């Protein structure tokens, strides 16, 4: 009877999923309710989790319920600690969820809500969740080793080097791009700048509170920090209204970029307890709460999506990001569908906390499904805006014009009516001077999120507070990534340069700390600077570069996973990782080729450089822009070469194993029976 009930429930879920996806895909010319996206997402994840992940676990990975995990075998109370599965789930989710699933879907909304939604659902269920799950599982089987170590052991030396280079390149590009998102959100915004500036003394205060006043009371300290952040948001409106104070906090993009670069250097060189750790706690506290409240807001409001299913910009002429729907929609949305960066978390802290092998399914597959749902919420937040408003906020001045009247006329001519007066009214409502040309995705997301919050959880009079809360939420996210990423990058440089000159590898030697911090900050700072000086807003060039770098890391992870499956004698099941790998290769190669060689100067780096070279007047600014274009083309070429190298080395290994020329052996830790099963039985 119970079995029949379960079967019936899954039939109903499948039917609901089909109806919801059908509604999203087939409706044209009329608005649909956002709840269709929510239902389609929840049902897809439920079906993927119940059936596909179970198949992966039982047939493909052949998990072993009685095999002890490294957390149990190597339990040291420090790195290796057997932990409750829900606790690990929360810990893992807090580590993988960043601004990527919020920003990418907002940028991709220029194609309409349909492409992004379908890619987020299919990409997550068949790609991202699979990648996170298998890498977590394989890391658990290898004493919690990192992706780089697993790549070196299972694929070969080239695999290890490519993984290392992929990690460092993604780190540099990621930090430059996310810093640019913050700059674009805060430029000419005294309220936003004041709020974010205040998070620095708040974090320092938290650091002192946790170390001196109430040692170890992190939850308490984070709550105190959160209250202070809310007060700074509230106080920001007076700063914005005060002619004297507003002057100090109204900053141009280059000034903000310089301040963020200095901040990044300080965060990397200062003691962790003083700034980095408290800021990370504060960011996590705000992140978990806000994501939950946003989900609640969407369910309460059940908003209508005003963005069409598909816009005219599927043809590649989009103002937010140039390039056709394939491959650029799939590069733009990485986190939320497939994110290579997750493989670092899945082979980092998480495998050292898993107490039973069977829990890798919930943590790995389930954690990514939860992040994918965040991306769906971001899509909804962008698409509840009137399309004209969305394009007015997200389009650079170089495309739509710098004056409000010109920008409004250009956007209206595309069939998305908007007026300068309505945009000015909206800007006043959210407490900003202007909302035109606020590229980067964060402001559009913040306006959408403020709209959802103001209509579901409070009065429209609070739009300005909600808008700045959303900006603070995103900027806090990003700055904590900047802190941790700069420090991780500094350690990676120290590791590498330690081989050149041993003292440079000493992580506590201050000259080495300062030198390597300057190196990593200089690397991402250059990309940030390039972005803020770009007439097209920077995001058009840099976000695809970040997407390519992230998908490169996913390619490395899926190559490693496929190699291990083949070595395990599971070649017949290798399509589970080969299919997403093939898709990502198609996307990465096509996007890289187009970013380098496309004749359209808005897409191709080299075409843009040629365009500038052909201009009748050449200024030092032109020469700098041309250099940046060529540099971006070179970086893209290096990334795609790394993809080729890892794929080739993996393919050779597969051929050697499958043809019997090499004895297949995997580098798993020896089997030890778990004591948890015996404890459960007794």
């Amino acid at each position: 009877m119970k079995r029949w009930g379960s079967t019936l429930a899954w039939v109903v879920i499948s039917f609901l999923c089909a109806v919801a996806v059908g509604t999203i895909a087939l409706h044209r010319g009329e608005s649909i309710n956002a709840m269709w996206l929510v239902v389609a997402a929840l049902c897809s994840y439920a079906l993927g989790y119940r059936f596909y992940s179970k198949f992966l676990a039982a047939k493909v990975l052949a998990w072993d319920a009685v095999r002890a995990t490294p957390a149990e075998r190597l339990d040291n109370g420090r790195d290796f600690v057997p932990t409750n599965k829900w606790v690990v789930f929360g810990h893992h989710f807090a580590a993988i969820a960043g601004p990527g699933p919020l920003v990418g879907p907002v940028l991709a909304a220029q194609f309409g809500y349909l492409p992004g939604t379908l890619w987020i659902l299919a990409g997550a269920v068949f790609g991202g969740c699979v990648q996170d799950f298998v890498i977590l599982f394989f890391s658990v089987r290898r004493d919690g080793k990192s992706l780089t170590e697993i790549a070196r052991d299972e694929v070969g030396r080239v695999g290890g080097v490519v993984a290392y280079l992929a990690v460092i390149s993604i780190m540099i590009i990621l930090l430059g791009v996310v810093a640019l998102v913050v700059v674009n959100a805060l430029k000419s915004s005294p309220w936003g700048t004041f709020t974010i500036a205040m998070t620095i003394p708040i974090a320092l205060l938290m650091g002192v509170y946790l170390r001196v006043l109430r040692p170890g009371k992190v939850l308490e300290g984070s709550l105190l920090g959160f209250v202070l952040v809310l007060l700074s948001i509230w106080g920001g409106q007076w700063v914005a209204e005060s002619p004297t104070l507003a002057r100090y906090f109204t900053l141009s993009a280059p000034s903000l970029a310089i301040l963020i670069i200095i901040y990044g250097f300080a965060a990397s060189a200062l003691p962790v307890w003083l700034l980095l750790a408290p800021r990370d706690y504060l960011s996590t506290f705000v992140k978990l709460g806000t994501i939950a409240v946003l989900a609640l807001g969407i369910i309460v409001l059940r908003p209508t999506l005003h963005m069409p299913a598909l816009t005219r910009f599927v043809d590649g002429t989009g103002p937010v990001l140039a390039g056709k729907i394939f491959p650029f929609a799939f590069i733009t949305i990485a986190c939320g569908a497939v994110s290579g960066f997750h493989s670092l978390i899945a082979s980092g802290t998480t495998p050292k906390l898993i107490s039973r092998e069977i829990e890798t399914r919930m943590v790995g597959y389930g954690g990514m499904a939860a992040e994918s749902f965040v991306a769906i919420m971001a899509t909804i937040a962008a698409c509840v805006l009137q399309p004209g408003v969305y394009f007015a906020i997200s389009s650079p001045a170089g495309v739509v014009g710098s004056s409000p009247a010109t920008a409004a006329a250009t956007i209206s001519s595309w069939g998305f009516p908007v007026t300068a007066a309505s945009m000015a009214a909206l800007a006043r409502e959210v407490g900003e001077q202007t909302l035109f040309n606020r590229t980067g995705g964060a402001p559009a997301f913040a306006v959408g999120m403020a709209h959802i919050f103001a209509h579901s959880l409070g009065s429209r009079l609070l739009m300005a507070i909600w808008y700045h809360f959303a900006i603070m939420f995103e900027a806090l996210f990003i700055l904590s990534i900047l802190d941790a990423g700069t420090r991780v990058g500094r350690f990676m440089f120290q590791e590498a340069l330690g081989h050149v000159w041993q003292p440079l590898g000493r992580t506590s030697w201050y000259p080495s700390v300062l030198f390597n911090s300057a190196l990593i900050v200089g690397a991402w700072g250059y990309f940030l600077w390039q972005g803020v000086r770009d007439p097209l807003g920077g995001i058009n060039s840099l976000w695809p570069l970040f997407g390519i770098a992230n998908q490169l890391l996913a390619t490395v992870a899926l190559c490693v996973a496929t190699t291990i499956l083949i070595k395990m004698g599971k070649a017949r099941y290798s399509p589970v990782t080969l299919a997403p790998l093939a898709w990502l290769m198609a996307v990465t190669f096509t996007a890289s080729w187009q970013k380098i060689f496309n004749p359209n100067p808005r897409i191709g780096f080299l075409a843009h450089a040629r365009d500038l070279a052909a201009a009748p007047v050449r200024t030092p600014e032109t020469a700098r822009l041309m250099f940046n274009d060529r540099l971006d083309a070179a970086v893209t070429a290096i990334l795609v070469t790394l993809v080729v190298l890892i794929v080739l080395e993996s393919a050779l290994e597969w051929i050697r194993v499958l043809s019997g020329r090499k004895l297949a052996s995997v580098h798993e830790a020896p089997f030890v029976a778990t004591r948890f099963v015996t404890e459960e039985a007794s």
Partner: protein
Amino acid sequence: MRKLQSAGATFIAMLREIFDESAYRRFLQRTGQAPSRASYRDFLAQQHGGRPRPRCC
């Protein structure tokens, strides 16, 4: 009611793990120290002495 209590306890445990309070408790157990400024300083040195945990994009 018991299920609700259990869920609440798990949620609190999750927060304590995410915010390193559980790690500090384990550190105290392992080293036999009492909670104090000195022990928390030692914990932070151990916890953050190496490479920080990466945060995803």
